[in-house]
């Protein structure tokens, strides 16, 4: 062996010493073996290639095989169930009755049918015999005729004769009942006659069968309408189909959006008309049917495909990884399960609230409520400041234009004066005239913009409180504590934790404190804490705020938890705040970019007064910001109530809480440093801060963050780990960033000011998923404009409305769609009979109320200027509809929103009520006041003496508040409109196509021919003050 190797190596190195063989190696050696071998291998490689082509690269084939079996067996399992169901239905009386009628109909027609069929039979026989000879003859004659027509004069004669002969020739037809002779003419007649008769008979047959056919249809519908799933027959149909299915790529192709999706080549169950769970399909999740068929119903897959919503590579079929786009070079990888709603944003950018997409909507909520939008620009969020700037710009532009126009007008006039001829002069004057008219038009436009600008002053809100008032509002010791770590003080606060050194904390606190304004703050006597507590629990504070800590915490999470207010707040200010949350100490002037002081007013000889009416700047003709920019509304409390609440809140504190004195807070030296830091960290994004009112947003624009090239997302030193650990993608970037905003500074040596600024929001896993979903979805849409959901009809009003609803957290108290959670429903005090105390649900509000009234109500829920400490509509409720000081624009949006939700037309033109005759009036009043009718037991009548006890809305309001048609439906069928309402059903019963009063007798009413419900409605809609006095005067 060793020798062998040696000699081999020798031959390798010393070629020339190889022994010379006897026979010529070139001529005598053979390549057969290597050739055979390599050819064989080549063959094998071919086989391999075929395998790859057939299966290796076509996994869907395997899937489809597998699916067929699983699917069939799953259906087989379903059959017995649906059989039972079906049996039950077939047994039902309704079905049997229909069936009987069908049978009966069929039998009654039996005999006629038979006779008809016999006739038809005979006709068919005769035709069968007749047709052939007839058509032969006909074609012969036609041919001959053509010859004649085209023949030359000479031969025409004879041909014509031949034609006649053909016409006259005798045709003998052998009918079963003996032969018959015809000329061609007769033959033709006979033929047509038979045809006609045949048609006639068939016609009669159809008529005869019409009724049974209709019954049969009804029968099928009867079953289908009552069957939950599919009938056994249908299931069998499916099974047959499945068995018959070939193996091929299932493809959706929509050239309009350049879409090719083969997803269904493996996900075969997605669109099956039966629900397939993973268990039914042998645990293979790939085969389940779409979990949200209702979504598919809205978005027809044939048009939208799969990948526009779910991402992934729709074309890919060679492997699961490729198809799901989960590889380095595919830009749109499949959305993970927890983020799949991101796809909705492709088309639903403008839906602030999106049905079926709770995660996404929650993500948007977080983005707004947690103040992300304070630093990050994002289309559709915090739009007011931008709009304000735009409006201002337009106004200034228009002013410039106006002046130019005026000059032009003057110039034209001068020219006119100096014109040579009269015509010229008149022409010029006319032009001047036109220009001045333009100027007027501009004025009109400017006025409109001014109005809008004022509205915007009301609409613009900040996620955080106004820091100008800290001096009056807070205890200085508390501030640094809070800034250092808000969550330590209040775990679920929206205020994030910034990464500040102790010195920085001091500087920031000092700046905040020193930049605060001083103002008159009257000393407030103590209130009754216990009563305060009751008010907080009952008046509706809990719609947004929560009280209690840990287990005890209850209420809404929209606004702050109040459990430790006592440690931070100043009582006197707190009273003022609770009483009038929007009240400012000094008005702010956007034009002069500073707070306007009493001196400024005095300087102009004006009283120091500012509110929604007195909102012009004393230093110039423009509007002031006269409110705090927080959404907290006024509950229209009395001073005393406010004191009680404040006193209660002051008791909300940790007894053991210690606060070190903060001498530095007055240190002037820290001011500039603090100011710099506050600007650097963008505090002004969420808070109003003196001198920083016009700060821009410091964060990156997130509108298209989801489609940023991955290379542009800075994973910094984590890049390599990210790649190794497989989170080098958008999802991974967002999640890590949200979990720990400083994460991408890890290991980097940076100056404090260079470090990433995003503060830590201490988000829960769920919240991170929600925000990630929202960010992932924020992409350049792959589908063209016309696919985006930007409706031009009422649905646009819905979109606009949701923005306002979300802004003021109306959903904290009210139910807008069935099953929507509110902050209140789960509170103990609203269980059982407590339900009655809940605020009205607003499902169908648009159909219920008169939009014009609704607008008035939203402007002032008290519906009165004097007596404000109450609910306008439901004085009996402890909960109080607050005054939000909505802008006219927002009121408009809300009104339209409600009308659109219940598909009500705008503007609303009420149907005139036909006036009550005296008799009717008497009857109605009788019915209304009769002991039998319970109306006045609950409904208020606007009589202070009796109304305390009442628990239902005031009649006096009906005519202006409600819509008559709705009211009628309501009194007849309240339980349909609002399930579980206290309004009793069955007040009326149907009788001969009219509703009559059902509870006991009312004198004279029986004799009244009209509809009682109508009567009551008309009475209520013509309810006059005198009438009211008459009712209550008893």
């Amino acid at each position, binding site marked *: 062996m060793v020798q062998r190797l040696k000699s081999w190596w020798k031959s390798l190195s010393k070629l020339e010493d190889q022994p010379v063989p006897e026979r010529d190696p*070139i001529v005598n050696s053979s390549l057969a073996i290597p050739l055979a071998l390599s050819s064989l291998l080549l063959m094998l490689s071919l086989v391999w*290639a075929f395998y*790859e*082509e057939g299966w290796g*690269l076509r996994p869907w084939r395997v899937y489809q095989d597998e699916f067929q079996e699983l699917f069939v067996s799953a259906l087989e399992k379903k059959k017995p169930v649906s059989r039972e169901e079906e049996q039950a239905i077939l047994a039902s009386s309704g079905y049997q009755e229909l069936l009987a009628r069908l049978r009966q109909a069929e039998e009654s027609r039996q005999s006629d049918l038979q006779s008809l069929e016999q006739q038809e039979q005979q006709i068919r026989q005769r035709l069968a015999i007749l047709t052939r000879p007839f058509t032969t003859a006909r074609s012969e004659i036609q041919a001959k005729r053509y010859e004649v027509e085209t023949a030359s004069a000479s031969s025409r004669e004879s041909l014509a004769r031949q034609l006649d*002969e053909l016409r006259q020739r005798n045709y003998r037809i052998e009918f079963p009942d003996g032969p018959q002779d015809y000329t061609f003419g007769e033959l033709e007649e006979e033929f047509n006659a038979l045809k006609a008769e045949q048609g006639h008979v068939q016609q009669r047959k159809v008529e005869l069968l019409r009724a049974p056919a209709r019954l049969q249809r009804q029968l099928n519908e009867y079953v289908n309408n009552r069957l939950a799933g599919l009938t056994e027959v249908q299931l069998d149909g499916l099974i047959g189909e499945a068995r018959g299915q070939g193996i091929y*790529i299932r493809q959706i192709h929509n050239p309009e959006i350049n879409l090719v999706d*083969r997803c269904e080549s493996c996900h075969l169950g997605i669109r099956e008309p039966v629900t397939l769970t993973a268990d039914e399909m042998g645990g293979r999740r790939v085969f389940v049917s779409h979990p949200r068929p209702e979504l598919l119903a809205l978005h027809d897959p044939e048009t939208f495909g799969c990948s526009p919503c779910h991402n992934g*590579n729709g*074309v*890919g*079929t*060679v492997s699961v990884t490729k198809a799901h786009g989960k590889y380095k*070079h595919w830009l749109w990888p499949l959305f993970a399960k927890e983020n799949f709603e991101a796809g909705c944003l492709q088309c639903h950018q403008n839906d602030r609230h999106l049905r079926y997409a709770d995660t996404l909507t929650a993500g948007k909520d977080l983005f707004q409520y947690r103040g992300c939008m304070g630093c990050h620009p994002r289309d559709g969020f915090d739009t007011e400041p931008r709009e304000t700037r735009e409006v201002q710009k337009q106004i200034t532009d228009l002013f410039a234009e106006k002046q130019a126009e005026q000059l032009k007008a003057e110039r034209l006039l001068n020219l006119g004066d100096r014109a040579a001829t009269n015509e010229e002069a008149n022409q010029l004057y006319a032009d001047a005239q036109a220009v001045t008219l333009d100027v007027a038009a501009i004025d009109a436009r400017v006025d409109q913009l001014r109005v809008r600008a004022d509205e915007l002053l009301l609409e613009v809100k900040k996620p955080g409180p106004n820091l100008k008032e800290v001096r009056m509002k807070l205890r200085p010791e508390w501030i640094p504590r809070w800034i250092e770590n808000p969550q330590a003080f209040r775990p679920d606060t929206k205020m994030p934790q910034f990464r500040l050194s102790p010195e920085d904390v001091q500087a920031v606190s000092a700046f905040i404190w020193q930049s605060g304004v001083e103002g008159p703050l009257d000393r407030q006597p103590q209130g009754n804490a216990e009563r305060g507590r009751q008010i907080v629990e009952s008046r509706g504070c809990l719609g947004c705020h929560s009280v209690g800590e840990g287990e005890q915490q209850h209420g809404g999470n929209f606004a702050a938890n109040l459990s430790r207010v006592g440690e931070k707040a100043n009582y006197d200010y707190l009273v003022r705040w609770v009483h009038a949350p929007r009240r400012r100490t000094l008005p702010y002037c956007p034009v002069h970019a500073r707070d306007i002081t009493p001196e400024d007013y005095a300087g102009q000889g004006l009283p120091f007064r500012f509110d929604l009416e007195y909102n012009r700047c004393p230093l110039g003709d423009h509007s002031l910001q006269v409110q705090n920019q927080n959404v907290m509304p006024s509950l229209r409390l009395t001073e005393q109530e406010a004191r009680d609440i404040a006193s209660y809140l002051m008791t909300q504190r940790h007894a053991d809480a210690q606060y070190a004195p903060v001498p530095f807070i007055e240190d002037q030296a820290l001011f500039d440093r603090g100011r710099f830091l506050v600007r650097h960290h963008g505090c002004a994004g969420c808070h109003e801060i003196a001198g920083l009112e016009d700060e821009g947003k410091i964060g990156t624009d997130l509108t298209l963050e989801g489609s940023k090239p991955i290379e542009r997302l800075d994973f910094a030193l984590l890049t390599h780990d990210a790649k190794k650990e497989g989170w080098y993608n958008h999802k991974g970037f967002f999640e890590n960033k949200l979990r720990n905003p400083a994460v991408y500074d890890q290991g980097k040596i940076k100056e404090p000011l260079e470090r990433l600024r995003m503060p830590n929001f201490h988000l829960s896993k769920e919240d991170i998923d929600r925000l990630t979903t929202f960010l992932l979805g924020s992409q350049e849409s792959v589908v063209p404009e016309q696919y985006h959901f930007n409706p031009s009809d009422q649905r646009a009003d819905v979109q606009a409305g949701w923005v306002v609803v979300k802004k003021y957290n109306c959903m904290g108290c009210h139910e807008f769609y069935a099953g929507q959670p509110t902050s209140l429903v789960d509170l103990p005090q609203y269980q059982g009979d407590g339900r009655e105390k809940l605020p009205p649900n607003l499902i169908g509000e648009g159909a219920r109320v008169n939009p014009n009234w609704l607008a008035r109500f939203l402007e002032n829920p008290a519906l009165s200027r004097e007596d404000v400490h109450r609910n306008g509509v439901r004085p009996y409720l402890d909960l109080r509809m607050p005054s939000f000081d909505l802008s006219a624009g927002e009121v408009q949006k809300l009104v339209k929103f409600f009308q659109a939700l219940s598909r009500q037309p705008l503007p609303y033109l009420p149907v005139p009520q036909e006036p009550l005759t005296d008799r009717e009036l008497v009857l109605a009043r009788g019915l209304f006041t009769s002991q039998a009718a319970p109306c006045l037991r609950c409904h208020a009548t606007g009589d202070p003496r009796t109304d305390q006890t009442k628990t239902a809305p005031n009649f006096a309001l009906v005519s202006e508040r409600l819509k008559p048609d709705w009211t009628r439906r309501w009194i007849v069928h309240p339980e349909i409109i609002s399930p579980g309402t206290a309004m009793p059903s069955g007040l009326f019963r149907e009788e001969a196509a009219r509703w009559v009063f059902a509870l006991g007798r009312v004198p004279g009413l029986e004799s009244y021919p009209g509809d009682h419900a109508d009567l009551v409605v008309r009475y209520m809609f013509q309810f006059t003050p005198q009438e009211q006095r008459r009712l209550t005067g008893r």
Partner: protein
Amino acid sequence: MADEKSREEKTPVEEASEQAEKKSPNVIVRIKETVLPFIEKGKEDVRAAQDYKKSQVWKSVFRHQLDETPRNRALAVLTNVFLHLHPAKVNRDAVRFRFTWGMGGISFYLFFVLTITGVFLMFYYHPSKGQAFQDIQFLENDVPFGGLLRNMHRWAAHLMIITVWLHMLRVFLTGSYKTPREFNWMVGVILLVLTMLLSFTGYLLPDDQLGFWAVTVGTNMARATPLLGHEGPFGPELGMTPFNDVRFALLGGSIVDANALLRSYIWHCIAIPLILSVFLAVHFWRVRKDGSISGPSPAVLESELKKVRK
């Protein structure tokens, strides 16, 4: 006139039956007469098939016998259009792989493979932005053996460059470029360049990041062409701008875009292959004329070298 009448009275059916009656008696005989000779001819065919080598078809295709005689072996090469690139006989040691490495032949074979796969690829490819990328996608996912086809084309291209280089290395090591083969070496160098250009122009066609940036980098060098590039020495002085310099000419634009795609497509699929084939022909022709596969020729001794007098 008369029989016209008679026809009139008879229906077509009757007439037909009459005809039949006329013929019927001697039908069998007639059939025999017609069929038998054919059977005879058939037998001839069978006989011919038994020694097919004498048949006209066979002779027309194969001009000589196949039995192992020197003559036939020579004819096998000489009478074959594809093989006659070779001489009838070659140097005995030239058939050793270790001498030639077979790289020239392999390069040509790869060129052949590339042509075939390339043609198939052309069926599925549109040289237009966006569409191009999709076509590759469809090639991978839909077209039967599409993936294999594309892979083969790409890998064959890379392999060809390697073999061409190795071929050059071998030719140098055996000094086969020396008299009388100097010119053929030049042709070889041109072929080498063309090969690389072929591969380069193909790089852009999938229209993906890889090709796009490779070509961008590649063509950016052209900016700096002396005199002809807008960033090259004396280029600006001669009025070269990004919109009229040599790079613009290459890309049909100032950036790599639709036009560049189309141009590289045409260069890749038509122009360069044609040019290359021409030079290939010359190359082979020269190989053949210069005594086919070179050497190994007998070594010459230094002592045998004639001194040049000065």
